[in-house]
């Protein structure tokens, strides 16, 4: 079943116009044909009735003198007068056939007219007329059976013309509707396209020019106003995030510095443990602020890449080292798969940020004592890095959303701190490198992949 809601406005408009015109035309044509048929029938009845009257008048004497032959002669004249009369019968007062004319073989049965003087039955018109003599006495009846072959011809011809006219009208209607709808839907589709673009690129500065005063014009105006507001608040929010995180950095610098100083001087327990705890929290805070700043940079278009050439393998190893140094739980990060001594063009620091982020996620979401695998392969001129963990996996409905900002996976048994910005930032960085980032996940864990275009210089080891 086709859902009307799912048909495009473009097609809906065409459909409405075509259906309306076809419907109206069909009613119009049918009405006309019906009137025509009615007219024709009335005329036919009148003419056959007058023939019957003439026959009745002419046969008064034949009945009176019982002259069958003369009556037959009169009846056979009908062939010339009205060729569509197939049968004519003259009966006496008792209803016995006195004389008969028949184009087909003679038949004694007759259509029962009852009290009516004429009747239509099938393709035949039956007419009767009493024969009244000079004394005004009933002498018999004239019965005429007229075949309506003309009517059938007329009907099929008229319906044929109506049908052809309808098809032509359908074609014209379609054409006109198509031309008109393009004007209507073009603007709508343009609006939709711009809205899509705005939502995909987060560029809310797109203004649509349209002078129309109709509903679509109003819609576009409302859209423009809305975009202006979105843009304003977006800018204010980004400014706020930027300023706030920047301001947070200054006291954080003091905290971090003094804690480090303290760490070097204080050797007693449990002070040393407290210092370590404070250091860890400071590091987390630093990370969060950095993420917030990155998001504000991404949204305000200020995130710039410092493109250089670097060896991906080295960067992966460095990232694993730096993550491993910070892991308190007993996870082991293992490199496997193909090792490619491959040079990549990109922002080394930003790609490292992606690696560290994906690795620390893998550590965060992995059960204790489970391994994490990192591998890199080349496929279709793309370098693909995979980071595989053995965590609980990601529910199907979350797979797309995890790369959105401020999105955090639900249904996790442990509370994972953070704003839910890491993957959003990763995704943006990889996209800026013309790469892709995606996740494959099942009950046995998740694999995060990202791909980067390669410069081929490979000396496979």
């Amino acid at each position: 079943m086709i859902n009307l809601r799912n048909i495009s406005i473009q097609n809906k408009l065409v459909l409405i116009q075509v259906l309306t015109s076809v419907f109206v035309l069909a009613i119009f044509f049918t009405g006309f044909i019906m009137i025509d048929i009615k007219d024709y029938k009335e005329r036919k009845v009148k003419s056959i009735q007058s023939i019957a009257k003439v026959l009745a008048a002419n046969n008064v004497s034949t009945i009176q003198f019982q002259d069958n032959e003369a009556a037959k002669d009169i009846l056979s004249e009908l062939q010339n007068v009205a060729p569509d009369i197939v049968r004519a019968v003259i009966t006496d007062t008792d209803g016995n056939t006195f004389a008969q004319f028949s184009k087909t073989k003679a038949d004694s049965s007759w259509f029962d007219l009852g009290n009516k003087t004429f009747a239509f039955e099938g393709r035949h018109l039956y007419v009767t007329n009493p024969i009244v003599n000079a004394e005004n006495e009933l002498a018999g009846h004239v019965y005429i059976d007229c075949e309506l072959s003309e009517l059938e011809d007329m009907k099929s011809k008229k319906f044929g013309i109506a049908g052809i006219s309808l098809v032509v009208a359908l074609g014209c209607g379609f054409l006109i509707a198509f031309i008109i709808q393009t004007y209507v839907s073009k603007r709508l589709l343009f609006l939709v396209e711009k809205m899509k673009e705005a939502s995909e690129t987060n560029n809310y500065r797109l203004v649509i020019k349209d002078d129309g005063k109709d509903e679509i014009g109003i819609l576009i105006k409302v859209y423009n106003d809305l975009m202006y507001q979105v843009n304003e608040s977006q800018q204010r929010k980004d400014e706020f995030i930027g300023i706030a995180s920047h301001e947070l950095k200054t006291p954080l610098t003091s905290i971090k510095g003094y804690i480090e100083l303290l760490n070097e001087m204080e050797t007693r327990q449990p002070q040393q443990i407290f210092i370590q705890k404070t250091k860890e929290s400071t590091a987390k805070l630093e990370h969060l602020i950095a993420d917030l700043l990155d998001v504000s940079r991404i949204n305000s278009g200020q995130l710039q890449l410092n493109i250089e050439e670097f060896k991906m393998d080295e960067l992966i190893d460095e990232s694993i080292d730096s993550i491993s140094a910070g892991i308190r739980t007993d996870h082991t990060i293992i490199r496997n798969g193909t090792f490619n001594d491959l040079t990549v063009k990109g922002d080394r620091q930003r790609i490292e940020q992606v690696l560290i982020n994906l690795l620390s996620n893998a550590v965060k979401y992995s059960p204790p004592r489970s391994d994490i695998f990192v591998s890199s392969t080349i496929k279709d001129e793309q370098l693909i890095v995979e980071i595989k963990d053995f965590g609980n996996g990601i529910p199907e409905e979350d797979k797309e959303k995890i790369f959105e900002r401020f999105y955090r996976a639900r249904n996790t048994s442990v509370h994972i701190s953070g704003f839910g910005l890491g993957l959003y930032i990763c995704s943006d960085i990889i996209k800026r490198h013309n790469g892709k980032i995606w996740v494959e996940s099942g009950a046995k864990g998740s694999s995060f992949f990202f791909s980067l275009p390669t410069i081929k210089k490979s000396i496979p080891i």
Partner: protein
Amino acid sequence: MKRILVVDDDTDILNLVKTILALNSYAVETIADWKQLNNAIESFRPHLILLDISLSGASGLDLCDELKKAENTMHIPVVLFSANVEMAKRVSECGAVDYIAKPFSIKDLLVIIEKNS
């Protein structure tokens, strides 16, 4: 003993850097008001200037540029200091030798100061 001049409008940061550097055998002079920069350079004759980028009322990048253009100060290496990494990366534009991003680790600070002073 190497003399380091630190310019930052945040006194907490100044105290922190002074403490760290003093503990690591540097002679440190700090100024919170950038207008005293030239006086401080004249009297203290630093081996290195650690200059914050966003000072109240002035840009560290501009100050650095001026220092590099003036004959009597152009030989002193300047290390930029900023919470804004993107800004701090513009070291070469103003003739600075390096940058330290806030928040910094003591190790990084000492390595950069050691290398450039």
